[in-house]
């Protein structure tokens, strides 16, 4: 991606005091470990604003993460929160959700966690249409471990394990999710805070397997090695290249370096969830017993 000339902006005013969403945060665990310019804080805030605006009881939400930078979300939210093993947030969430069907299960994890080591779990959770909300923060590499290439690294992307440029074809996450049967599929960037919040609110109130991909900068690793500038420069890139197209053909949603890419809500359909199907069988058996 081309490097944008930095805009001259005055230094931001340092605001002292509480975050407006502090009631949902484990304040005693702040400051967090995320780097300056990372998109994770924005995505987490969007989630918390969504919870707040909907007025959902936080006691009824479980946040489940895998391993990695995004995996640390579970450590900062003041809700029932589970920081599980690498790639296994979804099967953990499957067990928890089936044990507590009335709770909302929110899986917060990264692209490597959900689509490399956890890829098999992802497609099967989507196939079953479990009532789970997946927020996947895609920063195009493994940030926590020092910037290795991953399943979303674009062709040519330089990472510590692709020093000559990545030559593996990447996944297009929204296409994978839709193909596997997700009932709701959307993509936004960490610049789109209102739309992110809106998408998360939609996911929290609807049933079925919902998938939200959030494209987010990793200035410390991917951005630095690929000369994308700092976090703000990447946001400028999103502003100029993200094109909203709801209901786009998933085949057209690939992200190519330096080019325009599609964001929006791509899939939003009603179909029975795993739990509804299970309960249907239970009712059928009960009915047969009575007769």
């Amino acid at each position, binding site marked *: 991606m081309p490097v944008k000339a930095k805009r001259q902006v005055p230094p931001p005013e340092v605001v002292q005091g509480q975050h407006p969403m502090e009631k949902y945060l484990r304040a005693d665990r702040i400051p967090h470990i995320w780097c300056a310019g990372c998109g994770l804080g924005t995505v987490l805030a969007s989630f918390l604003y969504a919870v707040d605006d909907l007025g959902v009881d936080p006691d009824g939400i479980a946040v489940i993460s895998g391993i990695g930078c995004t995996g640390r979300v579970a450590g900062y939210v*003041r*809700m*029932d929160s589970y920081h*599980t*093993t690498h790639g*296994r947030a979804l*099967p953990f969430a*499957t*067990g928890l959700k089936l044990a507590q069907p009335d709770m909302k299960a929110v899986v917060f994890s990264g692209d490597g966690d959900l689509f490399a080591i956890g890829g098999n779990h992802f497609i099967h959770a989507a196939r079953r249409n479990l009532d789970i909300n997946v927020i996947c923060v895609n920063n195009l590499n493994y940030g926590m471990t020092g910037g290795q290439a991953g399943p979303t690294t674009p062709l040519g992307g330089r990472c510590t394990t692709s020093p000559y440029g990545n030559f593996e074809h990447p996944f297009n996450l929204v296409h994978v999710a839709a193909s596997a049967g997700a009932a709701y599929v959307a993509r936004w960037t960490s610049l789109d805070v209102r739309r992110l919040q809106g998408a998360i609110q939609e996911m929290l109130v609807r049933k079925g397997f919902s998938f939200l991909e959030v494209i987010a900068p990793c200035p410390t690793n991917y951005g630095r090695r690929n000369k994308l500038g700092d976090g703000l420069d990447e946001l400028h890139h999103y502003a100029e290249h993200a094109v909203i197209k709801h209901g786009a053909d998933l085949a057209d949603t690939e992200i190519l370096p330096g080019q325009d890419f599609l964001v929006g809500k791509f899939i939003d359909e009603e179909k029975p969830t795993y739990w509804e199907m*299970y309960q249907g069988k239970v009712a059928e058996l009960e009915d047969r017993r009575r007769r």
Partner: protein
Amino acid sequence: MPARSVLSGVHFMNGDEAIAEGALAAGCTFFAAYPITPQSEIAERLAFRLPRTGGVFIQMEDELAAMAAVVGAAWGGTKAMTATSGPGFSLMMENLGLAIMTETPCVVANVQRGGPSTGLPTAVGQGDMMQARWGSHGHYELISLCPSSPQEAFDLTVRAFALSERFRVPVLIMTDEVVGHMYERVEIPEEISEAPRRRPTGPVEGFLPYKPDEDLVPPMACAGEGYRIHVTGLTHDERGYPDMSAEAHDRLVRRLCDKITRAPEAYTWTEELFMDDAEVAVISYGISARVALGAVELARKRGIKAGLLRLITAWPFPDDVVRGVAERVQGMVTVELNMGQMSREVDRVVKGRVPLAGVYHPGGRIHRPDEVLRGIEEVMACR
């Protein structure tokens, strides 16, 4: 009215089915697994029974997922279980570690077959005994039980759930293909005592999810109970928050081990047969112990004073019991369907006090009594 979850009465069933019924009788309402021989009868029976008894059965995409789902369901407040055999057991090691680290009560049955790798899918083995002890990375303690019959498979499954709740630790049922597929009389009692989860009693404010009670086991706040706790596989403090210091790690790992090892009376079970006047002790477990008993009877007919020490608990190893036996006999023979695993523990405990022999077979069939008898005669010759 859902169907009865405790099938009180006398049944003719195999060990796998007995494990499934033991789970239901113990109050298990969540079972996740992936198909594998010779475990399938456990999953098939629970796929049939759980939807009728108010529980959840789910077939996961692999054993990594099955074990992860069990840990998640336990945090959702259920008594949860999975079952597998060697290849799947290898995949479960990852989230077995998560269950140990997060102190998640759950039960895992391993119907052992011949390994390594795909090995002998349909034939017996006992080669996963050390994997049960050390298979997940890091240092830990857990409890493993070895049934020798379908009845014991039922009984030990019920006990496994109670132990997992008491110690907040995964409990393994290390059975084998022959016990799993053997049909025998199984009596299911009228009453099965409940083993409730230890719940927090204090206020939500200031609750420390990993502050242990006097027995080193903390009460467990599950999802949706309002405690809003954080659970992590990272080394954590009493708040459940990550703490990357060597001191915190020492405190946590030491407690996780000590909470188990300090209470052997709660989970150590062995059976002694013909041991009163025995000069040689045969040590065995699972199906091999039944063959070993036949060999002990053969030896007695030949005038050799042999006896059987059957290990019902494999892990933690019953050091004191084996040491006590070593002081009474002049030789010991360990019989197992691997090339010598639990015999290493016998060796460690006996410390050269008496001659030892091992009758090993890597699986595919059970031992013949005459093979065990030769081992008995060998050790008698060393006296």
